[in-house]
């Protein structure tokens, strides 16, 4: 299993983390449409490329953080 570079704790075993998923933007509930809301809920780009993801360091600092991961090579880099 790969290691995830936690911004607070450094590289840690991926099993310590919760994977929240690709970062999405929550639409404004006052103006959103069903189509837009369901995109937010369910549609992910799932690209074989760099993706922007949210992880949760459950067994460490308990921080949610955003990081970029290459879904083919599992390389990580800071979000641009």
């Amino acid at each position, binding site marked *: *299993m*790969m*290691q995830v570079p936690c911004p607070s704790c450094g*590289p840690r*075993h991926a099993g310590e983390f*919760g994977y*929240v998923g690709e970062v999405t933007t*929550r639409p404004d*509930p*006052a103006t*959103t449409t*069903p189509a837009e*809301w369901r995109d*937010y*809920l369910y549609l992910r780009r799932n690209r074989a490329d760099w993706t922007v993801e*949210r992880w*949760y360091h*459950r067994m460490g600092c*308990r*921080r*949610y953080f955003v990081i970029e991961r290459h879904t083919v090579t*599992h390389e990580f880099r800071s979000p641009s």
Partner: protein
Amino acid sequence: MSTDTRTAKQVGSHRLDPQPGEVVDRTTSFEFTWNGRTYSAHPGDTIASALAADGVDVFSRSFKYHRPRGLLTASYLDPGCMLQVGDEPNVRGAHRLVQPGMVVSSQDTWPSLSFDVKAVNELARRALPAGFYYKTFMKPARLWPRYERVLERFAHGGTLQGSDAPTGRFDQRYAHPDVLVAGGGPAGMAAAIAAAEAGASVMLVEEEHDLGGHLRWGDEAELSTLRSLRDSVAAAPGIEVLTDAVVLGRYDDNWVSIVHRGLPHVDERLVKARVGALVVASGLIERPYVFAGNDVPGVMLSTAVRRLVNLYAVRPGDRAVVLTANSSGDAAAADLERAGVDVVHVEDARRGCDVVRVRGRSRVRSVELGGGRTVRCDLVVTATGWTAPVSLLTMAGDQPRYDATGARFRPDIANLLPSVLATGGVVGDGSLDELVANGRTIGNEAARRAGGSHPSSAPELTPAPHPALFRATTHGIVDFSEDVSSKDLFTAVDEGYRSAELAKRYTTATMGPVQGKLETVNTVAIIAEATGRTIAETGTTTWRPPYASVTLGALAGAEREPIRRSPMQTWHERHDAVPLQAGAWIRPDRYGDPNGEVEAVRDGVGIIDVTPIGKLDLRGPDVARLLNLVYVNKWSKLDIGRVRYGVMCSDDGVVIDDGVTGRLGEDHYLMSTTSSGASAIWEWLELWLQTEHPGWQVHVTPVTTAYASINVAGPRSRELLERAVSDVDLSPDGFPYMHVRTGTVAGVGGCVLWRIGFTGELSFEVHTPAGYGLHVWESLLEAGSDLGVRPFGVEAQRILRLEKGHLIVGQDTDGLTRAGSAALDGLVKLDKSDFVGLPELIWQQDSGDGSRLVALKTVDGSVLPAEGSQLIAEAGRLCGRVTSSRFSPTLGRTVALAQVDSASAAPGCEVTIRLVDGGTVRAVVTEHLAQVDPEGVRVRG
């Protein structure tokens, strides 16, 4: 090992005089049984070596044709030596050390190893072609159950004992070595020594029982080098040696799994290592040669002969013919000469000599040589080449290439990841000095890289020239585990399976217990031959983890699931509570009759341990904003001292949790969650605080186990609690329904009291510092003894809440139940500007879709429909399901909650409940969810 000839006892008719490198301890011997007969062995013997020392030459019957099989490799991989030991099937008999009293038998032979009925398969060989199972048992599909029963009887693989067999003992371990060396041969040992000398912590993993690799069965010079390498390993700082251990796989970022066997008190251990630099020194595996009769007992690889003679002092035959293409074959011939075996002929493949076929059935009788001459013998030794076990490297992304000079696949060392290195035979050949020197260089480089240094290039061993030998002019077995012949591979190619990956799956070659380690290269070479391509064009099949077999027990590890116990659990156990495991908690289901417990609560007073309820301490000026966001109802106007019930949804509108939250101070709240949701809701709150609203000032602290929680319920609960509480006014006006107070209970300060009513009765929930939980519990029981106070369990609570129509999230709702389907219409405030799930719930209300939660009253109140029973409306249309049902002792009839289609959800609607036994019962939707005290007089009392 001792070779003291004065005390030496000769065990076994085929045992040689003491050999310089032997590993058996001749000072002592013991007995074990093989197929019911008693045999002797020395400590250090494997099961196979002890039996071979007594002249046993048939160990199993082959997979498909049930041909007799003997020793081929005399190593862990030996495909003919999978045995049953006691209740353990598939033991690698040429690897497992024999123990006193061991009960060993052959597998899958009936009625006996020497006379096996299923050998008739061989007579029908023409009817068992490649892909036989696919061709024969596919159609018609309806006959599959019958086919399966037939095939099971012919399945290979030993017997498991019944469910009363003792379970194994397994565990797991984590390790973090700077350098891990996979393989303890000369190059691997040298790499470990050099890495340790460079300051790295090193784990050296060796599959066999001792370090040394091929040096162990070598000559005097090799044994001398072996001793000095072993001494250096022992002397080097920071090398941990695991023997009888195999690296199973390499995963991302050098996450490495190792199976570790032969440990005291544990059957198998899985070691999970995060490794700085991985050095693969997996050596070479000798390749069998394909020719007619190559699986007859007495046909052995040169390394098998060398192991038997030099490690176990076993004479493998009397008259030998050796086919050699390399120094291992030459050395095996010399070993046999020295052991007094009559080496009647050496066929040198480097000069184009060959063998054609072996004759014999249970033992080699003769061999026909390439020139046409037939030689009588009982042992045929082949030394026709090597396979580089590259699997760990391929798991790190290596693409092995065929090296025509060395006639084997080898890794593409130049393109390895920087954290993965290789040395020794898997890379190339060399003199012993060259292997050790390369190992040292690679080990030093591995230590540098593990320390973060920039990789520098390392010298690479190259394969020595070797003749390309795969198959003779005849057809023979390619995969000894699966009984796949070269002819089967030709057939597969003829039928169009020209790719190695397809022909492999069609014939099952390389798919047996050996997993290609012996037969992959031959398989590829024969497919290449049959397709008219080169080996390089054909390419090799993929190696995947695990490299060696591993028990499911080791993968599962020891059973370590911590159970949470409330501070009162010992009391419950002393009072005969029936335990209920609920999520992470063990708690009392009941103490006696749950109906009696219900009656005590309805008529007097009862107390229940509700410690597992999730509790979160919330502090900060923005708590109310957080509550407004995560709950569907409104929280901005909750006064200090008030408690409110709330429901949480996720953004798809589905109900995820419920509970009450009380305001203890200006910026201080205590939230309760469902018992199972405690940790998830903590993370849920943090998610919203950290991602959507990082500016809000809220501290969330989980306090579930910091408090012991006791619900005091029943019409006399106030009377009871007044005896235990001095500093809180408990009167109906002083402490009304849905309020919170802090105070002292049974002398314990800092308690939080909620006046709430899950049971439907007047009740107070006491949260006391956990250390005082048992004291408060016992004090309440003592104080209320004259009131008839009784402890009640989870079952009574479930009946009470069902009578009251209170839903349980996850019981009366599921993963698709939106708030509009959970009878929460009055609670959900769709006019709020935002809360999690708001848009979905607006749309649900607009469309009216989804089911509804209703209470049902069966027309025949004595019938109890099981939870999950289907509801049927007119014309047999399914319209819902029962979510909760119990017999109500208060009402003397059944009470139930159900999810029903909105068309059938109005009060008075009749539905039919389909019962488990096939019968039906009519039921009516009641006006209120609560069937006891729907007006809520009791809770407000």
